[in-house]
């Protein structure tokens, strides 16, 4: 333990007074006061530095947030704009074995009459849509089309904006999927590509399972205007089995309306289903594990709208005709099935 003298000398060396008597004690008090002043000054400096740091962080945060928002907006815009060059035939070709395994052994896919699709040139293929957000019929048909005509033939599919904004959109884009819009459809057809559209969209794909054998385009006739504008034939593509990959209970249109999804997300439905692995599945945003329902797809003969209905066709009449021939085919395919899922 240091004695009093040693402490006093140490204090003197440090600029303090002697540690003996009153002087030393007063010196110590002055020292304490000086130190206290220094601490207060340091604290003010620290607080000032803290404020500067906080301001810098806030500014940086605002910049980062602004940048992230701008990036997200840019990405969303890019995703919803059709860049046909995003389709990557090599990537698609490498995915064919996986698609083939799923289509052949899980869905036991059977795609008929692909020869009805014109060998070359733009064509608008119009399908009935089934299977919830997973749309297994699209995968089975994409495989069949790509192996039949080769991945070299440009082939695009339209998908809902929400699908194109999802994390797996990049994969879909490389397979030729573009956001559903009239402009994107025209871009695809004008480039000479084959285009697959599902006029029924989210309304049809989430119909209850007991309506599985019903073509329901909800009166949407945009595909006819598109075929007329682009002057391309319509080839109906009818599929069955997709609506048996889960038990679809309701479209949940009332729920979508309640949550204003139609206004903010272009969603007219918020489907409710019983699906693996979730059990009760509301929204189907994460998809579901599909039951191995047998999928059959039949391609019908091309319809040249102008040739069949004249130069100024009545859209209602064309709509009636297209949905009728599709419904008749769907009825025939339904009659072939003995059991749900098994086929």
């Amino acid at each position, binding site marked *: 333990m240091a004695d009093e003298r040693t402490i006093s000398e140490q204090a003197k060396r440090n600029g303090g007074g002697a540690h003996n008597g009153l002087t030393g004690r007063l010196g110590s008090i002055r020292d304490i006061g000086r130190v206290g002043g220094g601490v207060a000054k340091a604290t003010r400096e620290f607080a000032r530095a803290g404020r500067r740091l906080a301001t810098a962080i806030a500014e940086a945060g605002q910049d980062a947030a602004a940048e992230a928002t701008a990036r997200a907006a840019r990405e969303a815009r890019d995703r919803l704009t059709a860049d046909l060059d995003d389709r990557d035939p090599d990537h698609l070709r490498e995915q064919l*074995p996986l698609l*083939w395994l799923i*289509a052949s052994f899980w869905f036991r896919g059977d795609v008929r009459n692909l020869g009805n699709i014109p060998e070359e040139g733009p064509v608008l293929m119009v399908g009935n849509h089934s299977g919830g957000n997973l749309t297994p019929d699209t995968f089975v048909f994409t495989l069949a089309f790509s192996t039949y005509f080769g991945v070299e033939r440009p082939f695009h599919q339209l998908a809902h904006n929400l699908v194109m904004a999802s994390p797996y959109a990049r994969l879909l884009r490389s397979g030729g999927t573009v956001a559903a819009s009239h402009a994107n459809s025209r871009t695809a057809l004008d480039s000479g590509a084959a285009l697959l559209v599902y006029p029924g969209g989210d309304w049809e794909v989430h119909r209850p399972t007991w309506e599985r054998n019903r073509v329901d385009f909800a009166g949407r006739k945009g595909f006819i205007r598109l075929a007329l504008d682009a002057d391309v034939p319509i080839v109906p593509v009818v599929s069955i089995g997709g609506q048996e990959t889960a038990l679809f209970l309701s479209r949940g249109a009332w729920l979508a309306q309640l949550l204003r999804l139609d206004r903010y997300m272009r969603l007219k439905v918020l489907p409710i289903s019983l699906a693996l692995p979730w059990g009760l599945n509301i929204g189907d945003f994460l998809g579901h594990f599909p039951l191995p329902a047998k999928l059959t797809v039949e391609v019908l003969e091309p319809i040249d709208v102008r040739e069949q209905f004249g130069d100024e066709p009545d859209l209602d009449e064309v709509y009636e005709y297209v949905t009728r021939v599709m419904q008749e085919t769907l009825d025939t395919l339904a009659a072939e099935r003995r059991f749900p899922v098994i086929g």
Partner: protein
Amino acid sequence: MRLNESIIISAPPKLVWGYLADPSNYLHFMSGVTRWEVAGEQRSGLGARYRMLIRVGSAEIGGLIEMVEWKEGLDMAWSSVTGVDQRGRWRLREIPDGRTKVEFRFAYGVAGSGIPGWIAELFAAPQLGRHLRRTLQQLKRQVEHEQLRAEAAARQRERAAAS
């Protein structure tokens, strides 16, 4: 994945070759083949191109192929130009008693498809193997039938000449 099947046909190689060299016969004896069309001006021989499809699982697989080897009466081989990678070969060898050993080789795959590609090749093999065997049996039946018809026609001609 490479598959290999062979069969003995009771006909000379020339007859078998003549049958195989004619693209219009392929839909009659190739099992599972849904399309075999001449693509271009050249119908057969080295450099001839065909658009072919074969049903495997839930898809019709194939593409544009080109004859890359053509040794008259012996070997004919093709390779894919587009579509799934494939190589095929007819190998004909004469054996005693005027018969022919016909070997059909078929190799296929998708480069760059990784493990799914390897699994798909394995899963496709039994079905393609069946197609190969049935193809050879149908080829044998068709060619031997041709041979019998040719022999009967020759006998008829001889009888007609004798009388």
